[in-house]
């Protein structure tokens, strides 16, 4: 066997990078969910949590930098790899049936694009306060309540969380294999169920907040 090994990023390396950034983003989503659920504990708890996050600017901006870098790498590699599909199969099938793919796997690119748009909107909306009728920095609970008192943002958020659920349902499974971690069959089966469970928890948990806020606003307005 010749010893020279060519360098350069193969798709396996790129997928491993996508998986690593995926792990970071998934961990963030779970932490974000845990923090956001304090919405149900009332205004003081949520505002205190918001203040806690802003206590140390260094930690906050380091975390934001890691997240931003992970997000960019994830998106750029996803677009790069998906454009290679056309190169790998220039003539598409007249008839092609996907027998085994889960709904999450089939829609990965589309849910990813929805999430890309959503993240931009979400940061502008609830971090910077654009498109927000009465944004007040630090008053997290009232910002959330006001933001979701109208139907359109609530619908955008809920649809995006459905996309997030689908994306995580396949992503959480696929990232373990891209990193070469699940070498045993029975573990793979358990992991399939786990990733669906994680996706459900994340999507339902995060969608519950705008839905509750809208419901509260509607009952109060009546």
């Amino acid at each position: 066997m010749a010893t020279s090994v060519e360098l350069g990023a193969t798709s396996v390396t790129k997928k491993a990078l996508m998986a690593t950034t995926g792990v970071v983003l998934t961990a963030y989503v779970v932490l974000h969910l845990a923090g956001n659920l304090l919405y149900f504990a009332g205004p003081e708890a949520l505002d205190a949590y918001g203040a806690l996050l802003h206590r140390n600017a260094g930690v906050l901006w380091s975390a934001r930098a890691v997240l931003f870098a992970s997000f960019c790498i994830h998106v750029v590699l996803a677009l790069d790899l998906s454009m290679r599909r056309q190169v790998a199969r220039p003539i598409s099938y007249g008839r092609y049936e996907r027998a085994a793919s889960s709904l999450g796997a089939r829609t990965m690119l589309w849910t990813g694009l929805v999430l890309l748009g959503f993240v931009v909107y979400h940061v502008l909306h609830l971090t910077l306060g654009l498109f927000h009728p009465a944004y007040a920095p630090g008053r997290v609970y009232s910002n959330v309540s006001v933001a979701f008192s109208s139907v359109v943002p609530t619908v955008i958020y809920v649809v995006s969380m459905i996309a997030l659920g689908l994306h995580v349902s396949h992503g959480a499974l696929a990232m373990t294999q891209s990193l070469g971690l699940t070498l045993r069959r029975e573990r793979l089966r358990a992991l399939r169920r786990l990733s669906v469970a994680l996706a459900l928890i994340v999507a339902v948990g995060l969608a519950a907040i705008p839905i509750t806020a809208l419901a509260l606003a509607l009952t109060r307005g009546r």
Partner: protein
Amino acid sequence: MRIALEVWRQRGPGEPGRFVRYESTQASPDMSLLELLDVVNEGLVQKGEEPIAFDSDCREGICGTCGFMVNGLAHGPLQGAATCQVYLRSFRDGDTLFLEPFRAKAFPLIKDLVINRSALDRIIAAGGYVSVNTGNAPEANTSTIRKDRAEEAMDAAACIACGACVAACPNASAALFTGAKITHLGKLPEGEPERARRALRMVQAAAAEAFGHCTFAGECETACPKSIPLQVITQMNHDYLAARLSGEGRAQPRHIEPGTPKRRR
């Protein structure tokens, strides 16, 4: 039994192709799909037309020569079966079957349903072997292998290189094929010393052949006539990443000329 075929006809690599419809009333449920193609071809030859070109050899699912898409599924609707093992009893009377070649950049079309799969041979040539001295066969019990390991290696070794995994993959990835050989040899003591280099070289060879990336959708596992498990891809990723991280292949032989003055550091 009435079966209609919509077959992809293309005279050669650069020529335009299209589906052509052939209807047969001579089909029997006990006939294999390839036998139906034989019957249709006899009729075409009698009429002086060009017969449908398709690959087949053993016609018992062990050689890996046959293979095309049947109604959008590689090797047709059956689990663990090659195209030659698909019988007309799997279809209903009056069905229309769309027969299309496996499509991938790395599988250039030769004619009709025949494609060139030598890209797979080049992946094997890059590292799908063990380097051992030839000579007498060694004593069989010299190296013992755990039963589980032997089974895993054998599951992966069942690959017949038909290319259905590539054909069924939404990204035209050869990950199942490459992973199968890496798993087969890497699990056994004979293949262990070259495991890291094999993974590097075979993955890079697959990339050079313009196969796509793996998204773990699982289509390949379902299409595979030998039911090779999806874990071989995880094993491939594992071995490849481990080899990259450990810096495999960087250590070159050191050459120091004897009798030259001592080096001073």
